[in-house]
């Protein structure tokens, strides 16, 4: 369905070796693995869009993909920002679940915008403790634009934890949004969790 072309193969062996020594994961994440993960995610999303299911069914499918291929606990913790420090383990668990549903509804609703489009992997390279996979989004009627994924294996599995669409950092944007929601509720995390179940 989607077409993946590796246009650059600057493979840095030493960086990968450093990564293995540093993280000691069950299997080391490498450049090919990072782009493969992005390819799998994109294919899964494309097949959901092509299925022509109802919006509710598509959102449920998207939630499944999000849980399977992304590091949800890390994303949720980052989005909650400073308040994650004072939250109890039980609150973090509830927040993470509510946040997952919120993200799935919010972005799942917008899938139709990407109908007929495809992502083409441009390059994958190690950065800091993770991999950056750059793709070009081709959407009918639009100039192709950059979508960049960040992939890490620090959770023990190859999972993505952030995405940039033309420079807009989704993790940072969601942290701003969750922060604003928390401010509106005078920092009441329990209330935020209740409301997040309906938001998005």
């Amino acid at each position, binding site marked *: 369905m989607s077409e993946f072309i590796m246009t650059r193969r600057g493979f840095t062996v030493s960086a990968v070796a450093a990564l293995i020594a540093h993280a000691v994961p069950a299997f080391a994440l490498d450049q090919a693995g990072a782009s493969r993960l992005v390819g799998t995610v994109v294919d899964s999303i494309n097949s959901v869009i092509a299925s022509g299911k109802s919006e509710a069914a598509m959102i449920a499918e998207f939630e499944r993909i999000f849980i399977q291929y992304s590091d949800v606990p*890390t*994303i949720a*913790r*980052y989005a909650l*920002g*400073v308040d*994650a*420090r004072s939250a109890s383990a039980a609150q973090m668990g509830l927040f993470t679940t509510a946040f997952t549903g919120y993200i799935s509804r*919010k972005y799942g*609703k*917008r899938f*139709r*915008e990407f109908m007929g489009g495809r992502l083409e992997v441009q390059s994958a390279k190690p*950065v*800091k*403790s*993770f991999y*950056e996979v*750059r793709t070009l989004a081709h959407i009918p*009627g639009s*100039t*192709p634009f*950059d979508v*960049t994924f*960040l992939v*890490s294996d*620090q959770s023990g599995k190859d999972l993505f*934890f*952030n995405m*940039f669409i*033309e*420079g*807009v*950092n989704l*993790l*940072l*944007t969601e*942290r*701003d*949004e969750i922060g*604003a*929601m928390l*401010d*509106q509720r005078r920092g009441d995390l329990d209330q935020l969790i209740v409301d997040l179940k309906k938001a998005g």
Partner: protein
Amino acid sequence: MQIFAKAFLGAALATLAACATPEPGQNFADPYEQRNRKIHEMSKRMDTNLLRPAAMAYGKTVPDPVRVGVANVASNLSLPSTVLNGVLQAKPELVVNNTFRFVINSTVGIAGIFDPAAKMGLTKQDADFGGTLHVWGAREGAYLQVPVLGPSTERDIVGKAVDAVTNPLSLMFPPQAIPVTRGIKVADVLGDRYRFDNTISSTLYESADSYAQLRSVYLQNRRYELGMSAVADETAYDDPYAETAADPYSDPYADPYAALE
């Protein structure tokens, strides 16, 4: 016209010298937040009552291929200005690329309705005077919400004004053509508002703080366009795993662009 442009440019650069800088710990400066928020609410009302309904009507009555053609013409008309800025920014590749785009799409592409240049690998590259000022070393300045134009910064609003008075299009077309080019621009804005309705409406009407969301998204995207985001400079990436390793939230608002200052 040219004398005016020069005088304006002088005044603009003088203004920029006095640009606001971010407070410590912030990655943007927003000293006019109160006034900006009022303008933002006004813009939202304008969007609800005027822009969005007009865009929806335009999107539903005008067929898709026509809308694409209008967007192409608008994009083509913006090229001479990008070429001028490419020269000012000393970017020969952009100058050549966009010049060929303009020539090919204006002729083979029938006044820019079609985009055969893109199929030949000449995809559009953007440049504006805000970007030129950035290349010349001007800082971003304060974040601004501008009536009608929307989000901007001190540097970029000066850039917009300079682009408006120095647009080479005014030398290519007789004054009678101005209403036509303006009409195309308006239709293009409506078309964009229609196409990106989900994204724009969810940001404006479903965010907990639409002002803060718009500010964040605008600045991130603008800095990316100017080549100053993490995507352009990997050292600026925020690593949530590294944060967990040390004190995770010692500095949750660590400036992702700090490495670039």
